[in-house]
């Protein structure tokens, strides 16, 4: 998934960088008056904060959290994720494969589109073909890269595609279809709960492979809620949905949900306190302390899928970037606890693995000594590795995303604890650093972050550290690592696969091409009007189970 809420939130972040915690602490209670919804949507609707979805409401074109939040209410996918972050079947009756390459997916009876038609296998195939077609410029396109036929549809820039559908998808009957993967992948079912894999109804298409222009403003879905009126992107500040009375799994507990669009989290938080909003799944950092005292047990804190790193170009970089011992010394000299608590006000927690706590396969403390703050040992290791005679350490970051503070804090850690010369280097946009890294022109360290696409440990390893990985900026290349991933992919079950992924993870922890610094947290809060609010690993609120208090 692309980074949370994308560039849109940049406006707010830039402003917040200027703001001096403008809405400071107060221990008053919020409005105790249960009032009707203040305008915008149906009276009594549950009101949920989102940023403006970046595109119209089309599953394949939605890779940010706000659009995904809305689509999660309108659609259900083949699988969903339980409390242990493992997939369980929803629309799917079974997802099976003898060899982790050819998957047979059977659908349950009884799921219906909002227009009354049954959900059939063809709906999934139509949807996936549409998204996988490069000519449609869908942001979720890359999710289908592992399916046979993708390369024929997307031959690369300047070449003409020889196919307009995925040859690896075959409809067997109304309730069954098969998926042929290019390579075995035992974790394939974990991908299927994500927004990009939702089906699309016949009603969405104008002709074969062509979506109706207005579908995305008023999508017909198959989920527990349906649109109550069309949403005009760029103008309407509320997306209104009502309960789908005909949902197979039963009725949702609330009649209606309004998604209210905010550009600034501080503003949304004030609206929550004023009683004009019910659920926020992301709080502004400066409001965390207030929220904890004011909301008490209506304050939510849980791990989210993001990881923040300090990365190194270990092949093409400066001498300190190339030395594994120096990287370890740097890692040990970073006071993660203080940084997460003070700089981030508790919206991050110290990282201790390359795999996030939101996926099964995470091991607490896996990083061990290397991620434990120990200035004395760090300095000894640094000098032993000759770090004190090496170049000045440069840490690049983008100046537009609120990263200055923590990078400066790390630089101070390194100066004090290692006696190293450190220069934090701001760059106007992250894209600039990525361009330079791609061209092997960036010698120094750099900040980096990752948010998962699907809850499998594999997603935290291959794209970032595998040879030829789509986001491999460190230049890390290890045959042993790649082999372990391949073995994990070919494993018989998800659990068996995890063991191989963890071994691969261990190799990284020894090498440290990136230094894991912090895990992101989900900090949310909800009003007294609602209860039973749960947030999933994709930072989506489970609106099906939310109740009125």
């Amino acid at each position: 998934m692309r980074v949370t809420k994308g560039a849109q939130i940049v406006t707010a972040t830039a402003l917040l960088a200027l703001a001096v915690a403008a809405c400071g602490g107060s221990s008053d209670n919020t409005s105790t008056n249960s009032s009707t919804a203040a305008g915008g949507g149906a009276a009594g609707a549950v009101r949920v904060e989102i940023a403006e979805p970046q595109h119209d409401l089309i599953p394949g074109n939605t890779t940010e959290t706000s659009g995904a939040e809305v689509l999660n209410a309108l659609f259900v996918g083949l699988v969903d994720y339980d409390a242990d972050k493992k997939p369980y079947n929803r629309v799917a009756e079974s997802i099976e494969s003898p060899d982790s390459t050819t998957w047979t997916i059977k659908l349950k009876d009884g799921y219906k589109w909002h227009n009354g038609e049954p959900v059939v296998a063809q709906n999934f195939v139509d949807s996936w073909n549409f998204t996988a077609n490069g000519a449609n410029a869908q942001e979720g396109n890359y999710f289908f890269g592992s399916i046979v036929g993708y390369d024929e549809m997307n031959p690369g820039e300047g070449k003409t595609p020889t196919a307009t559908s995925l040859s690896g998808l075959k409809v067997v009957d109304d309730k069954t279809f098969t998926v042929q993967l290019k390579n075995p992948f035992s974790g394939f079912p974990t991908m299927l709960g994500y927004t990009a894999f939702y089906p699309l109804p016949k009603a969405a298409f104008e002709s074969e492979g062509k979506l109706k222009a207005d579908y995305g403003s008023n999508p017909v879905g198959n989920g527990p809620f349906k649109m109550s009126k069309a949403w005009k992107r760029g103008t309407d500040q509320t997306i209104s949905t009502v309960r789908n009375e005909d949902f197979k799994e039963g009725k949702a507990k609330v009649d209606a949900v309004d998604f209210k669009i905010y550009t600034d989290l501080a503003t949304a938080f004030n609206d929550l306190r004023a009683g004009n909003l019910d659920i926020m799944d992301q709080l502004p950092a400066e409001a965390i302390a207030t929220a904890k005292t004011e909301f008490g047990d209506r304050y939510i804190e849980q791990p989210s899928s993001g990881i923040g790193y300090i990365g190194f170009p270990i092949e093409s970089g400066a001498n300190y970037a190339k030395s594994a011992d120096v990287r370890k010394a740097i890692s040990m000299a970073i006071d993660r606890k203080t940084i997460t608590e003070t700089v981030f006000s508790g919206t991050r927690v110290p990282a201790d693995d390359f795999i996030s706590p939101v996926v099964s396969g995470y091991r607490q403390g896996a990083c061990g000594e290397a991620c434990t703050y120990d200035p004395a040992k760090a300095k000894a290791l640094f000098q032993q590795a000759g770090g004190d005679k090496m170049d000045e350490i440069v840490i690049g970051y983008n100046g537009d995303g609120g990263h200055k503070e923590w990078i400066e804090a790390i630089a101070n850690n390194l100066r004090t604890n290692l006696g190293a010369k450190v220069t934090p280097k701001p760059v106007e946009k992250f894209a600039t650093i990525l361009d330079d890294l791609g061209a092997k022109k960036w010698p120094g360290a750099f900040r980096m972050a990752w948010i998962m696409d699907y809850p499998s440990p594999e997603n935290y390893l291959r794209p970032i550290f595998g040879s030829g990985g789509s986001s491999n900026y460190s230049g890390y290349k290890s045959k042993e690592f790649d082999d372990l991933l391949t073995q994990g992919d070919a494993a018989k079950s998800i659990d068996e696969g995890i063991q191989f992924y963890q071994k691969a993870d261990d190799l990284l922890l020894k090498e440290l091409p990136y230094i894991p610094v912090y895990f992101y947290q989900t900090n949310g809060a909800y009003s007294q009007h609602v209860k039973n609010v749960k947030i999933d690993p994709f930072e989506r609120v489970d609106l099906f189970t939310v109740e009125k208090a």
Partner: protein
Amino acid sequence: MGRYVLRRLLQAIPVLLGTTFLIFAIVYALPGDPLQALAGEKRVDPVFAAAMREQFHLNEPLLVRYGYYLRDILSGDFGTTFRGLPVSTIFEGKFQVTFKLSMTALVFEAVIGVGLGFWAALRRGKWEDKAVLAFTLLLVSIPTLVSGFVLQLLLGVKLKLGTGIAFFPVAGVQDGLRSYLLPGFVLATVSIAYLTRLTRTSLMETLRADYVRTAVAKGMPKSRVLGRHALRNSLIPMVTYLGADLGTLMGGAVITETIFNLPGIGQQLFQSVYLQENPVVVGIVTVLVLIYIVANLVVDMLYAVLDPRIRYE
């Protein structure tokens, strides 16, 4: 008069062409790959990027892209954002929000600014005058960012009137005019201070003019002296200021719009500059330039109304 207006409007055409090209070139010259910025932290998906580059002519040189842009404009297509939002939608939806906000601010500015300045000038040197001066100093020294959040918290969250619901909405435009009162005031604060001081100085100067003394000497009622002679003659600098300020308010509302969650053009402009969405930036700026031109024209016309000696041929 008619010919004068026509000439002024014709002069606007080269100004518009010049500004659009300048803005287009400046946005074009921004460093970094806009599609990468769109993708955030990850490397942009090459398939997606290729399709986008094709669609938005991103691989073409500056002049070719500008040419495409002009061609589309002439055929009535104002372009879209990278995320497929037509610029025309931005015009009809977002501009009216910003326009309403600016107009509210302008009304606050005119009423409070002129009123306070007038009062202070009449009470010159007395405590009322000093209080007004101190108040304006306070307004000038509080940035919009602070006054916005503070007033939002005090009036939107804390202040409850009987019913338990705050009178001023915290955010959004769903309450009609009421939604614009607080943000309009916040946006106007700094300008109110300037205008108060301008009115005060200007009026005090006029009050000392010979013709005012003559009017008083021949026994004209005080209200008539002030209204017909003093105020009217001191209005020119204020009208000039208000006219120029309309453009500033429209283009500079980004912070206020963010704090009060008003879906106006400030936000859009900021984001589009960041993503180098040329058609959007140029489109918005063009309209802003037009507003400046028209506002200036109206101001010049008003000069003639206020001072009969001024004639345009």
